[in-house]
């Protein structure tokens, strides 16, 4: 009697089983293997030695403290910049809002460590601006180390805050703010007593993303950090280090960083618990008309920040056209760098788009199915899948890479060095964007639309294909764009997983810069930036102005 509807079985049970196997195989199993490895001693026995080593040696535990310091500072700064920017652009009639939004998304989607690389080219020891300032006799301190990392993180990650908070500010019912003014609290006080508290959950969610992304970043501190070591660098060194590296120790470090980010996630969840307010959106917030000089001032202020954010990309594009002679830049412009790329690195380009494309298709299918299971087929199993599929969110790319290698470097399933392992890593790591947006839109689709279809005689899976999936597409696509753009720019897991044949553009940028091939590196980075811009433009065209996040 309980299991009455046989139709419930056929289609969805199969889907749930498949997704469950996928999650076990590519998330639970690799991570468990890594966890077990971290407790393995040199002789193969069980030991806590790896963890003791970490907490005993200052060299190691300092990297954790460093990570926390620089990530917290970057989060605070990103909030200080992102929230006011969001408020100004959403509530005042400044010029060029579309351009500003686009530029901000582009600065978020920059290729890996291009930020660090460009800032070094501008402000580093031999940087463009540094040299000019030196000429006129101005000297300033080094931008390497803590300061440099902070600068790059802040400028790259404030867009998260901006995009999230803009969205939330746009959905506050104007009458709440009017009620506050009517009761005598206006201006700045209203801002802090009504407006910001209402969007606090969103502010904190964006802070979490900033913190997590910064914590997982590996390229930026490597390039600009110099002596300032953070945890991901040590993981990379320990894993791939030529001298004295140890896989088991790298595993232990990985477990530690995952625990830390899980802890941060839990704390954030705790804080925003019960703070999600539903508001009846009767009147959208009004855009305030500024007087001309105010308008100029506000636009200029916002533009300055935006410009700083995209400056690295502009630098890279310019550099990519500078004539080179071997590793040296010479006067004049040319397409040399692009020619080199085409000759030497066309395989990387093909790989990048091929893998990202395949990963995208898998992500979209998986996200739609998973969202349906999580929203419409609530059960212990769906809660478990929800948790497991969101888990990679707290795993830095390099850690994910290591765990996949540990899991799939011996038979029966050898995937290391193949394209599949790269694609698997991309799918797991970038799925959460698409999954969240798919879940979001599914909650907005009234189940009675599906019930109407059933009662008209259409079976479950046909209803899903013709009605539900069809109606979900706009929401799925907005997440998929984000997934795709961040997949083509993905470095940290690629770096762990690539082999000669499967290297991608971001891997090539990394090795080019390491070999002082700045010109080719810049050309590759410009290609990624161009792809990002093209994808975003297409998205904007198709979505008529829907927000990407």
């Amino acid at each position, binding site marked *: 009697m309980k299991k009455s509807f046989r*139709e419930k079985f056929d289609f969805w049970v199969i889907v749930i089983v498949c997704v469950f196997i996928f999650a076990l195989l590519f998330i639970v199993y690799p991570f468990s293997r890594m966890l077990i490895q971290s407790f393995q001693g040199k002789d193969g026995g069980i030991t806590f030695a790896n963890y003791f080593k970490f907490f005993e040696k200052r060299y190691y535990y300092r990297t954790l403290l460093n990570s926390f310091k620089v990530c917290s500072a970057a989060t605070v700064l990103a909030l200080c910049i992102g929230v006011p920017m969001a408020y100004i652009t959403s509530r005042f009639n400044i010029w060029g809002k579309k351009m500003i939004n686009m530029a901000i998304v582009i600065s978020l989607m920059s290729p890996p460590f291009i930020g660090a690389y460009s800032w070094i080219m501008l402000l580093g020891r031999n940087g463009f601006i540094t040299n000019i300032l030196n000429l006129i006799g101005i000297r300033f301190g080094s931008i390497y180390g803590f300061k440099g990392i902070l600068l790059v993180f802040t400028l790259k990650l404030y867009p998260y805050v901006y995009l999230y908070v803009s969205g939330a500010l746009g959905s506050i019912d104007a009458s709440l703010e009017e009620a506050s003014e009517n009761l005598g609290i206006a201006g700045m006080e209203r801002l802090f007593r009504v407006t910001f508290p209402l969007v606090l959950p969103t502010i904190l969610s964006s802070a979490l993303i900033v913190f997590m992304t910064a914590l997982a970043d590996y390229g930026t501190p490597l390039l600009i950090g110099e002596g300032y070591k953070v945890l991901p660098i040590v993981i990379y060194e320990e894993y791939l280090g030529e001298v004295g590296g140890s896989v088991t120790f790298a595993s232990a470090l990985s477990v530690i960083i995952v625990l830390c980010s899980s802890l941060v996630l839990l704390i954030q969840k705790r804080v925003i618990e019960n703070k999600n307010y539903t508001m009846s959106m009767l009147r959208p917030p009004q855009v305030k008309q500024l007087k001309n000089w105010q308008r100029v001032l506000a636009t200029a202020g916002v533009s300055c920040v935006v410009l700083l954010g995209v400056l690295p990309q502009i630098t890279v594009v310019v550099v990519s056209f500078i004539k080179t002679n071997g590793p040296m830049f010479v006067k004049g412009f040319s397409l040399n760098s692009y020619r080199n790329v085409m000759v030497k690195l066309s395989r990387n380009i093909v790989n990048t788009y091929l893998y990202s494309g395949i990963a995208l298709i898998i992500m979209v299918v998986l996200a739609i199915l998973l969202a349906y299971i999580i929203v419409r087929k609530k059960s212990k199993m769906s809660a478990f899948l929800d948790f497991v599929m969101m888990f990679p969110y707290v795993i830095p790319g390099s850690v994910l890479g290591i765990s996949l290698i540990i899991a799939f470097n011996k038979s029966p399933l050898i995937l290391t060095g193949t394209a599949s392992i790269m694609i698997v890593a991309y799918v797991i790591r970038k799925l959460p964007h698409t999954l969240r947006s798919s879940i979001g839109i599914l909650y907005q689709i009234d189940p*009675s639309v599906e019930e*109407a279809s059933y009662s*008209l*005689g*259409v*079976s479950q899976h046909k209803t899903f294909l013709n009605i539900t999936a069809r109606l979900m597409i706009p929401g799925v696509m907005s997440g998929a764009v984000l997934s795709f753009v961040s997949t083509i720019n993905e470095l940290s897991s690629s770096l762990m997983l690539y082999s000669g044949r499967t290297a991608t553009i971001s891997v090539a940028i990394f090795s080019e810069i390491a070999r002082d091939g700045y010109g080719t590196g810049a050309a590759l980075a410009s290609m990624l930036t161009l792809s990002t811009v093209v994808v975003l433009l297409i998205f904007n065209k198709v979505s008529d102005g829907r927000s990407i996040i």
Partner: protein
Amino acid sequence: MSQRVLIESVTKEYGEFKAVNDISLEIESGEFFTLLGPSGCGKTTLLRMIAGFNEIDKGEIKFDERIINNLPPQKRNIGMVFQNYAIFPHLTVKENVAYGLKPRKVKGAELEERVTNAMKLMQIDQYADRLPSKLSGGQQQRVALARAVVITPDILLMDEPLSNLDAKLRVEMRTSIKKLQKSLGITTVYVTHDQEEALAISDRIAIMNQGKVMQTGKPETIYRKPNNRFVADFIGTSCFLKGVCKGEDIIVNGKVVMQKRLRDNYQGEILVSARPENIILKEELPDHLCGTVSIATFLGDYVNYEVLMDDGETLQVNEYMAQKLNIHEVGQRICVKLEKDRVSIFSSNGEEALD
């Protein structure tokens, strides 16, 4: 063909909570049957059990002789109209109406003809190629109805179909629904919390409360002879007076207000229930219940009085202008008269009728 719906001792449990508690109903073929009750009474749950969206934990539901407990919704051949219309937003009006014909293998000219007829019947044929977002609420409702009836269902289910429409349209639509139902002769189960709508549209009504059916009957029976205090209170307005029955004397507040022989010659505490239009006001009436007029509200065809009785209770009384010319002043001393055929008498807990 239109079918009977038999609901036999049906229960729906959510943990300890019984949303539908051992309900049995017989809905005749071609009947317009309404489930009426306050929100949370289980009426929508019961409807969704008939539709197949909620599983039946105990009991059976039959269409004619066929038990449909385990039949998935898509095989029940039911037309359903949802509260929020549930029109497919990505399909045109015509595609929406045709949607249910595809799984029934209706094709070509026959499909065209049936879709066109259904759209004409609901007067939406001129919007055939529009998307639902370009339609008004009332038009969307018509699309939902056309889509539900075009498949010639055995049973038509409607879940508060009019609650999202404005008052005027609601009255208009309920008339068209009633006409449609009568012309198709289709067994219809209709859910609403609006008593006026239920009285206007139904052949029979089941009043529900807390997962149970409180009373089933024709609209006028339910209004005139409520089975218990809940029904008397929920349908229309009723005033309740505590009293006792001694012999055949009905005594309220020490006064014998009427003579009435109760069922099984019941003696003891009772509850007298009277509707405002059935209470008679007299300026002087010795040995009756008296009080003062506390509020008089002029409503055009009648005046509604709130009378504060001497024992502190408040009574609602309506006086129709067609029979009366003068309006009683606030503060005026007034007495009330109850007539034995125009009151209901319940047990003191209000759960059963004693007359």
